[in-house]
């Protein structure tokens, strides 16, 4: 509108011309100016839409953290340090009445200690990362250095597909197929041959039914292999050819080239990718909730059923809603806060390492 006003303001200076050509010229000028303003405002629209959109993840993060902190505050006050070290999980009696500690209402006898869950989270993730790292590096080697392109491409897609399989589907397979298979055919062999010495005795009988720490860790490993191996394969492709050829010219075997040139070249990138996988393993919920056995204990041996923080939240939050004082739900906020802090720290560290060592800038993170 202002454009029309602008042209109208200018026209009195020029006497209205009877000439047709001048009129068209003036129309064209006005037309052009309208377009110009539209285009300039388009730039503004893009700029402002972008500014607003880029603020939203930050807003969401602040919102999420604030909700967790506010909700967890009473639980932190009552549970104290015992929450990190204790091994009792008792919601208290629903009929025993309500008491107050530091002004926070909770059922009489409520006592929460999450050590078995914290330990379980760290144990499953540790198993997953150790196994996934070995497999991923080998897999990345096979895909980038060994196999010809026409075969490594579809195989790479298959690995990518593994990352896309929903975690409940992997959990379903783990609980009904993989776990029972391991308990029947693999675990007995390991358990029967382990000597009774300090560390290895953790691998001795009984092997259980396939729901437990080791099965959970193995399935988690399977879920994070695609993350680590795709990043590692990208890194291997970036290693220049000359040093490798130089190594070969010196008479190095393939293993020596890999061990002394290729891997050291991208070592910190691999560490970063592994830490990303660790972050994913720590927060993985559904598959572990289905496979780990959901028993609140520090696993007495590596086959025993146990639970993790994420698995406990998803399977027990339902029951926590029956606590009329809301203290059980608040305790789950504290649990969530612990998990969030652990995985965010791991994730940021990983991104720092990956960012510093690779210029890929490719989307990394949640699966796929």
């Amino acid at each position, binding site marked *: 509108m202002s454009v029309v006003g602008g042209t109208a303001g200018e026209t009195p200076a020029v006497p209205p011309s009877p000439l047709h050509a001048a009129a068209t010229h003036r129309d064209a000028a006005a037309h052009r100016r309208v377009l110009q303003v539209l285009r300039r405002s388009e730039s503004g629209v893009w700029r402002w839409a972008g500014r607003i959109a880029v603020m939203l993840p930050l807003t969401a993060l602040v919102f999420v953290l604030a909700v*967790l902190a506010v909700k967890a505050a009473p639980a932190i006050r009552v549970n104290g340090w015992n929450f990190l070290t204790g091994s009792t999980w008792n919601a208290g009696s629903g009929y025993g009445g309500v008491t107050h500690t530091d002004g926070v209402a909770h059922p009489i006898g409520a006592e929460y200690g999450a050590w078995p869950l914290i330990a379980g989270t760290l144990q499953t993730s540790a198993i997953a990362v150790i196994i996934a790292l070995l497999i991923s590096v080998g897999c990345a080697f096979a895909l980038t250095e060994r196999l010809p392109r026409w075969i490594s491409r579809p195989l790479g897609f298959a690995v990518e597909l593994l990352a896309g399989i*929903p975690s409940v589907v992997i959990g379903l397979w783990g609980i009904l197929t993989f776990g029972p298979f391991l308990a029947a055919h693999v675990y007995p062999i390991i358990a029967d041959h382990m000597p009774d010495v300090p560390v290895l005795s953790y691998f001795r009988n009984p092997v259980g039914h396939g729901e437990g720490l080791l099965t959970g860790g193995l399935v988690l490993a399977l879920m994070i292999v695609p993350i680590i191996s795709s990043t590692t394969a990208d890194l291997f492709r970036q290693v220049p050819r000359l040093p490798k050829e130089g190594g070969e010219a010196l008479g190095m075997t393939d293993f020596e080239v890999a061990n002394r040139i290729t891997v050291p070249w991208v070592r910190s990138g691999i560490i970063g990718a592994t830490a990303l996988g660790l972050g994913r393993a720590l927060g993985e919920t559904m598959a572990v909730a289905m496979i780990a056995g959901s028993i609140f204990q520090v696993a007495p041996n590596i086959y025993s059923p146990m639970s993790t923080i994420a698995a406990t939240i998803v399977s027990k939050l339902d029951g926590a809603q029956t606590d009329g004082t809301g203290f059980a739900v608040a305790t789950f*906020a504290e649990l969530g806060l612990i998990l969030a802090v652990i995985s965010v720290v791991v994730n940021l560290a990983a991104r720092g390492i990956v960012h510093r060592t690779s210029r890929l800038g490719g989307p990394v*993170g949640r699966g796929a």
Partner: protein
Amino acid sequence: MGPTAARGSRRRGGLEIAFRVGTYLALLLVLGPALWILGGVVARAVPHWRWDVLWTPTKGSSGGLEGAIIGTLILMVGVLLIAGTIGVLAGIHLAELARPRKSGKPSGGVMRTAADVLSGFPSIVLGYVGYVALVVGLHWGYSLLPALLILSIMVVPYIAKSTETAVRQVPTAYREGAEALGMSMGYGLRKVILKSALPGIVTGLLIALAIACGETAPLLYTAGWSGSVWTGSFIGGHQFSYLTYPVWTFYNTSTESGHSLSYDAALLLLVIVLLLLVASRIVVARTQRHAESH
């Protein structure tokens, strides 16, 4: 020297063989389980497959999956609209519009860190926050909107990241050309830069959709479960159905129908994810051919 060298070379040869076998074994250890999962689900779902599962509502743990299928599709469309819009705009902003700081570092450092932190956030914790703040706090009840919002928070960082990468890969010459032709910033962005970054953006969106449709943890305590088709309301305790719920819940029911619904849902999820990933591959392959022909 002779024996030592011989022993050394034998050791080297042994390591070399172990290395070769090891790499192929590693590949097998990844591909084997992947095929095992796919084959296992197909083998359990297909023999009992009934086509009317697609259009029968769920009753208890029997019936069909009509509500869940439609629910998952609605969730995908909703995530595409909410997270897609926000993520793509945020990605464009990070790549193109945010001015570099004086130190020469790319700007938007805080925003980028926030997105990174959010993408590493455990999904169950996001689900908990949705339950506490939206379902209970705002009295929305188990319904579509809280589920959509939490799912969107989850995938926005991913879409923003892939969009930023795609836009950054557009050659600088294109931008200079647009400016030399007198295009305004916005017009050039739309007509030149986004046009050539589009395949990358679409790929990111497709993969984000694949992530969204396979999620369970953020939905359990925000969407609830009803088994019937969406009633059309966004809030107010109208519980919502989605495909991952039957997989998570029905596998340990005692009924045969519950088991087969669980597998049917798993199969449908795999089909959807596979279609999305293949579609993203096709987009990438077509643009690569396009780029190589130049």
